[in-house]
């Protein structure tokens, strides 16, 4: 079974790749066995992140950018991330709707993923999926996400080149962009730039970029009209320029190291949660202490220390 899947991934078999992602998402331990075998023979694809407010045209831009890469014969994978509902645990994944140009192309693999998230963090399966898709031979991986929460900023921050998309009518909305989002942007895309207010928006962006004070690389602003395919050439050229900049200044390697460092931390957190926190939560001692906390006979600070000591001697 495992050999079969590994073989399929290396050959670029879509069904096997897709099934392996499902395993990674749902049966973590089994997924780890797969990833252990892949890691050492895989070099990461070039990672491009794209983020911005809802309705700014991220999926349409993705469709057009991927088409350009395809003209050069590159194999491309897209990971489209949408938030998981905190209430139901479900998610609506609608990014494929605007990717109709490339969704029939055999050189493009699109996967929608929900943020899920444990401990308020990022779904660690997304990192694993990047590794898996790299092993499957995709040259570029484009990660698309709504740039609203910290999780999303974390995701795009791991990309080598991060595009932050906005639109003329975003107006004051851009002021509410998380400071972090302005800092992670390597390229700013002013989409729907055939609409009124584009000059004012460009000025606002320029001011914010200057405030963010990036070292070495001055993030350019590229005006696009994704639905008309305007500005996409310039955008992909700028992505290439940024890639060259990273390679020449050895920053690409640094970024890869940072991705792996975070993944290691993520995996540790995941294992601590599974092996320590969850067993404690399910123990009768936990319930007993909870009862006392409720009756205000004990404080949760002492209870946390006691539980760790009693159950795990730490």
């Amino acid at each position, binding site marked *: 079974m495992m050999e079969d899947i590994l073989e399929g991934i290396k050959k670029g078999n879509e069904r096997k790749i*897709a099934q392996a992602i*499902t395993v990674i998402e*749902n*049966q973590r331990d089994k997924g780890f066995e797969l990833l252990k075998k892949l890691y050492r023979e895989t070099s990461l694809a070039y990672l491009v992140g794209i983020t911005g407010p809802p309705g700014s045209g991220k999926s349409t831009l993705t469709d057009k950018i991927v088409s350009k890469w395809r003209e050069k014969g590159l194999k491309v994978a897209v990971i489209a991330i949408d938030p998981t*509902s905190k209430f139901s645990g*479900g998610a*609506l*994944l609608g990014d*494929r709707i605007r990717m109709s140009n490339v969704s029939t192309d055999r050189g493009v693999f*699109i996967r929608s993923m929900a943020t899920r998230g444990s401990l308020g963090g990022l779904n660690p399966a997304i990192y694993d999926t990047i590794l898996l898709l790299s092993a499957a031979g995709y040259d570029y991986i484009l990660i698309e996400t709504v740039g609203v929460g910290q999780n999303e900023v974390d995701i795009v921050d791991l990309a080598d080149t991060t595009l932050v998309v906005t639109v003329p009518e975003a107006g004051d909305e851009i002021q509410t962009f998380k400071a972090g989002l302005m800092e992670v942007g390597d390229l700013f895309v002013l989409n729907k730039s055939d609409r009124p207010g584009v000059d004012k928006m460009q000025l606002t962006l320029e001011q914010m970029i200057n405030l963010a004070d990036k070292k070495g690389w001055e993030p350019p602003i590229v005006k696009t009209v994704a639905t008309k395919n305007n500005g996409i050439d310039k955008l992909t050229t700028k992505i290439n320029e940024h890639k060259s900049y990273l390679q020449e200044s050895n920053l690409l390697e640094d970024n890869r190291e940072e991705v792996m460092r975070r993944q290691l931390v993520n995996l540790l957190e995941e294992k601590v949660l599974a092996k320590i926190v969850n067993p404690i939560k399910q123990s009768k001692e936990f319930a007993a202490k909870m009862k006392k906390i409720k009756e205000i006979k004990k404080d949760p600070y002492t209870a946390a220390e006691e539980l760790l000591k009693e159950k795990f001697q730490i």
Partner: protein
Amino acid sequence: MAEKRKKVLIAKPGLDGHDRGAKVIARGLKEAGMEVVYTGLRKTPEDIVRAAIQEDVDVIGLSILSGAHKHLFPEVMNKLKEEGAGDVVVISGGIIPEEDHQFLKDLGIEGIFTPGTPIQEIVDFIEEKVN
């Protein structure tokens, strides 16, 4: 986080341009804790099967109001089998006359949900089939 979430593809095959029903179902399944991928309008059977494979869904829900189900659904089912994904549960909804239900069931479409079906009924059907 480690538990398996059911993943569903809601798809609109063919040329009909009405997707309110599909969107209502997508939202309802999301509220029931499922991860729902929506394809958008006017997809070919090939598009739908490819999306189902890349997303590795447990269920495909085909929504159709154009009357072309007897033409499009067999294509979807055949392509699924060709791609080795015949194990995906396929359900359908929309305007599907009673007399066509048996034809679709014979194709392997396991559930047919016409207008007025409570969403909970579809949720229960999926919960039961996918396990």
